[in-house]
C-alpha cells in the first residue's frame, strides 16, 4: 500500500480493499514511527485527517468518488489550510492558525482528498536544503546525514520515506525540482499562472508556483487535474480551458526533439550526476527521440537576476509580518518602532533576514535602475534564450541540481554556495516555463533527477515524456533502506 500509485490506491479504495480511514491511519502510524527522526512534518492533526477520511469513505460508498477521493496527501506548510496551524517554516507564524483555505487546499478538499499534515520547509520558502526551517532540519531518507533539498524538503522526504503517497510543493527557483532530484521523486512546476497562488504564502510573487510531488509522472498528472485551474481571486491566475493532464501519457516519443543546453554540462556539474543524466537522455534516444545541442547563453546570469528579483519581491511581501494583526509579536518593546523591529528580528531566521535586507537594498533610492530594472531586462533575455532554443527542440533536458544530496551543514556558512544549487532550475522560473524532475539513477548511492523543461503550457506532453521513461526504467520505484 505504501508504494501504491494514486491510481492503484483509488482502485483499492473503490474495491473496498481498504478504507480511507485505514489508509490514512496506515500513514499516520508510519509518520508516528519515522517522523521524529526525519522531521518531514511540522504539524499533524490525526483527528482532523481521520474525519476527512471518514467523509471520503461515505463519498466512496455513495459512488461519488473522484480519482483522488479518500487518498491522503501531505501539504507543504506554505498553503493556508483553515483550522490548521500554518507556519511557512517560520517562528513568525508559529501559532498562526489559518482562518481560510488556499485555493489549492480547497481543490483537494473538493476532490475528497485527505490532508495528512503540513510538511516542513525552508523558512518562507527561502532555501535549497530545508536547513533554514525554524522547526529543524529534515533528513534525506536516502542518507539521514544529508539534506533532502529545499525549500519543499519536508514534502520530498515525506514521499521518499513513504510517509505520504504524494505531496504538494512550491517552486520559486527550483524548490520542487531540486528536492525531487535529491530524494528520487517526480516533481513538476507548472507554467506560471496555471495554479492559483491565493492562500499560498508569498515569497516572490512573479516566480512562485505550486506543484505536485509524487512517485511517478502519472501521479503528477492526476494531482495536476485537481491543482490546476483558474481562480478569480488571483489576478495572475490564467483563465484557460480545463485540461486532463493525463490525456497524453501514452503517446509515443518517436520524433521528439530534445535540446541539450551546453551551459548545463559545464563547470560545476558533478561528474556522477552528468553521467546519470546523459544515460537517461540516451534512454530517450532508444525511445525514438532525437537530440540536438542548444545554447542558453544567459544561464549563469540567472542566479544574480534571481537574487535581485526574488529578495526584492520578498522584502515587500514579508512586510505584513509586523506583529499587529497575527503572527509573532515581541513580548517586550518600548514603542511602535521597537515593537516592529524586535518582532521581526525575533520572528525571522537569518536567511530570511538576509534576503529581506538584499531586497530592501536593491529597491532603495538610487539603486532601482541598476539592480531591479536591470534584472528584469536580463530576465527578458533569459526568456528569449528559451524561445530561441524551442525553435530547435520540443523539450530541454539536463540536470535538476549540480550534485546529489550534500551533507547537512555543508553549505550553511556560505549563502552563495547554497544559491548555486539552483543553477539549472532558476531560469525556468524567471521565464515562467514549466519544469519537471524525474528520477534517472544514482550517483554515489544517492538519487539523481533528470530535469525536463517544456514550452509554455506543455505539461501534458512533459508528463508523457516522463511517463514513457518510467515505463522502461525503474528508478522511480526505488525506495530508501530502513524505512
Amino acid at each position: 500500500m505504501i508504494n501504491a500509485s494514486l491510481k492503484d490506491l483509488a482502485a483499492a479504495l473503490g474495491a473496498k480493499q481498504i478504507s480511507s480511514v485505514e489508509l490514512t491511519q496506515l500513514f499516520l502510524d508510519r509518520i508516528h514511527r519515522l517522523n521524529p527522526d526525519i522531521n518531514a512534518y511540522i504539524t499533524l492533526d490525526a483527528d482532523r485527517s481521520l474525519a476527512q477520511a471518514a467523509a471520503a469513505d461515505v463519498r466512496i460508498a455513495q459512488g461519488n468518488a473522484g480519482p483522488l477521493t479518500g487518498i491522503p496527501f501531505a501539504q507543504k506548510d506554505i498553503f493556508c489550510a483553515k483550522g490548521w496551524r500554518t507556519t511557512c517554516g517560520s517562528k513568525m507564524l508559529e501559532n498562526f492558525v489559518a482562518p481560510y483555505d488556499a485555493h489549492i487546499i480547497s481543490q483537494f478538499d473538493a476532490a475528497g482528498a485527505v490532508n495528512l499534515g503540513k510538511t516542513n520547509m525552508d523558512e518562507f520558502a527561502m532555501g535549497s536544503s530545508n536547513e533554514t526551517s525554524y522547526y529543524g532540519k529534515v533528513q534525506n531518507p536516502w542518507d539521514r546525514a544529508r539534506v533532502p533539498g529545499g525549500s519543499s524538503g519536508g514534502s520530498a522526504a515525506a514521499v521518499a520515506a513513504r510517509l505520504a503517497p504524494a505531496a504538494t510543493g512550491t517552486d520559486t527557483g527550483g524548490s520542487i525540482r531540486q528536492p525531487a532530484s535529491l530524494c528520487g521523486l517526480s516533481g513538476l512546476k507548472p507554467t506560471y499562472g496555471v495554479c492559483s497562488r491565493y492562500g499560498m504564502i508569498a515569497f516572490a510573487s512573479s516566480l512562485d508556483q505550486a506543484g505536485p510531488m509524487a512517485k511517478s509522472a502519472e501521479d503528477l498528472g492526476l494531482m495536476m487535474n485537481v491543482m490546476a485551474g483558474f481562480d478569480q481571486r488571483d489576478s495572475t491566475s490564467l483563465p484557460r480551458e480545463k485540461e486532463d493532464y493525463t490525456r497524453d501519457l501514452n503517446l509515443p516519443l518517436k520524433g521528439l526533439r530534445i535540446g541539450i543546453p551546453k551551459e548545463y554540462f559545464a563547470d560545476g556539474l558533478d561528474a556522477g550526476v552528468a553521467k546519470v543524466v546523459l544515460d537517461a537522455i540516451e534512454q530517450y534516444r532508444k525511445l525514438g527521440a532525437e537530440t540536438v545541442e542548444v545554447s542558453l547563453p544567459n544561464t549563469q546570469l540567472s542566479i544574480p537576476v534571481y537574487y535581485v528579483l526574488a529578495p526584492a519581491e520578498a522584502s515587500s511581501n514579508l512586510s505584513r509580518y509586523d506583529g499587529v494583526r497575527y503572527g509573532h509579536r515581541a513580548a517586550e518593546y518600548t514603542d511602535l518602532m521597537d515593537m516592529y523591529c524586535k518582532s521581526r528580528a525575533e520572528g525571522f531566521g537569518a536567511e530570511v533576514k538576509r534576503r529581506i535586507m538584499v531586497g530592501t537594498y536593491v529597491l532603495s533610492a538610487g539603486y532601482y535602475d541598476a539592480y531591479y530594472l536591470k534584472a528584469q531586462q536580463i530576465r527578458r533575455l533569459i526568456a528569449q534564450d528559451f524561445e530561441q532554443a524551442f525553435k530547435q527542440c520540443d523539450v530541454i533536458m539536463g540536470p535538476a541540481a549540480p550534485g546529489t544530496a550534500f551533507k547537512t551543514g555543508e553549505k550553511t556558512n556560505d549563502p552563495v554556495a547554497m544559491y548555486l544549487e539552483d543553477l539549472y532550475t532558476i531560469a525556468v522560473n524567471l521565464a515562467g516555463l514549466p519544469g519537471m524532475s524525474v528520477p534517472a539513477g544514482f550517483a554515489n548511492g544517492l538519487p539523481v533527477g533528470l530535469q525536463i523543461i517544456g514550452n509554455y503550457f506543455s505539461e501534458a506532453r512533459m508528463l508523457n515524456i516522463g511517463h514513457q521513461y518510467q515505463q522502461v526504467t525503474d528508478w522511480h520505484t526505488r525506495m530508501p533502506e530502513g524505512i
Partner: protein
Amino acid sequence: MQWEVVIGLETHTQLQTNTKIFCGASTAFGAEPNTQADAVSIALPGVLPVLNREAVQCAIRFGLAIDAEIGRRSVFARKNYFYPDLPKGYQISQYELPVVGKGKLSIQVPATSAGQAYEKVINITRAHLEEDAGKSLHSDFHGMTGIDLNRAGTPLLEIVTEPDMRSAAEAVAYAKKLHELVQWIGICDGNMQEGSFRCDVNVSVRPKGSDKLGTRREIKNLNSFRFMQQAIEYETRWQIETLEDGGTIQQATVLFDPDTGETRSMRSKEEANDYRYFPDPDLLPLVISEADIDAVRSTMPELPEAMQARFEQQYGLPAYDATAITASRGVADYFVAAVTAFGGEAKLVANWVMGSVAAKLNEAGQEIAMSPVSAVQLAGLLKRITDNTISGKMAKEVFEAMWAGEGDADAIIAQRGLKQVSDSGAIEAIVDEVLAANATMVEEYKAGKEKAFNGLVGQCMKASKGKANPAQVNDILKKKLAG
C-alpha cells in the same frame, strides 16, 4: 522684498463604489470596527488583490471631465512603508504610469476687497488609483492606539495639480471646484466630514519674479475649505518670516491645528521616506481601450461648462446667472426642474434660486438637497406671481412660510388670505379713501413733490393690507391725481 507663494494640491477622493478597490469587502461608512475588513483588507498571509471595475470607470470619468489623457496602459506599484493602518506594509498605488495623465480645470476666483473676480486655468498633472489606509484611533486604550481596517482598501483617486496656484483664494477656489466636479460626475460623495475628500497642500514661497521653486512644506489632510484658507495663509506668513529672519525652509510634512490656527511639523514624517516603489507583481498592467473610453463617455452627464453654455442659449440667461446655477449639480437640477414645472420665464426662476433659495440655504449651511421647498413648489409660487394672484413682495412672505413647512404656495395664500386685490373697482375705492384722507400729500404731489406719490402708494398698500396689486394702484392713483 516682495514674495510670491506657490501652491500645488494633491487631493484624495474616495470613489463611490460598493466595494474596495482590490477585494469584495463593503465600503459602507460607519460600520463597527473591523467588520468590513476581510482577509485581503487585513493582509493575511497568502491573499491577493483583484481590481474593481467600477473604480476604473470612475477614473476614466474623471479623466474625461478634465479633458485629460487616459492612460491606455497603466501599472500598479507598491509604495513601501510601515504604519499600523497599512496592513501589507505597502500601499498599492500607481507610480510611473498613472491611469489619468495631464488635464485642466478652470476655476473662478471670487472678488475680494482687493480685486475683481477672475478666471484661471489650473493644470492637473495626473490622477491615479490607489488604496486608502485604515484608521488609527488615538483616544486612550491604556496607552495604546486602536486600529480599524474597515477603510483599508477603499478606492482612492489621487488628483495632483501643477504648482499653479498663487494664493490661498486660488487654492480654495480650485478645491471647491474639484469638490463639486467629482460629485457632479458621480464618482465621489464629497462628504468631507466622513473623509471622502481630503486635500494635501504643498506650499512654498519665492521672491516675486523668480522662476526657481522654493523648498516646499506639505500641509496634510485638510478636510474643510475654511481650514485650508487659514492653514495656507498661516504657512505662507510663517515661511516668509522664517526666510526674512535669515532662516531656511526644510522640507517637511505639517499638520494644521484649527484651535491655534498654526501649522506644525509632523514628528513621524520628519525623516524622508524611501518608498522603494516597484511594479506590483500581483497585478497585471491595466489596459484601457478606445471602446472602454467611449462606453464611459456615453454615460457621462453634461459637464458644468457645457450646461452653463446651454443655459445661456436655451434659457437666455446671462453668463453670471448660468455660472451661479451650474456651480453645483444639485442646484442645476433644481433649477431645471423648477423651470420645467413653471413653464414661464427662466430668468425669474434663476433670480429666485440665486436669491431667496440660496440665501436660506446659506443661512442654514445646507445643501440644496435639503431644501424644504422643492423645485415644483417653487414653480407653484412663481406661477402665482405671474398670474397676479400675489405681488412679488407678497411672494417673499409666502416663500418664508413655505420654507417653514407651512405647505404649498396656494395653501398659504388661501390660509392667510393673501390673494392680491386686482379688482379695479375695489382698488379705486381704496385710492379714493386714501386721497380723501391724505389731502396734504395730494397737495405736495400737485406742487411737484414726486416723493409724495410714493407716500400715497404706500398709504394705499397699507390700507389694503399689502394686498392691492401695486401696478394697478400706481395706474389708478396716477389717473385720479391727473384729474
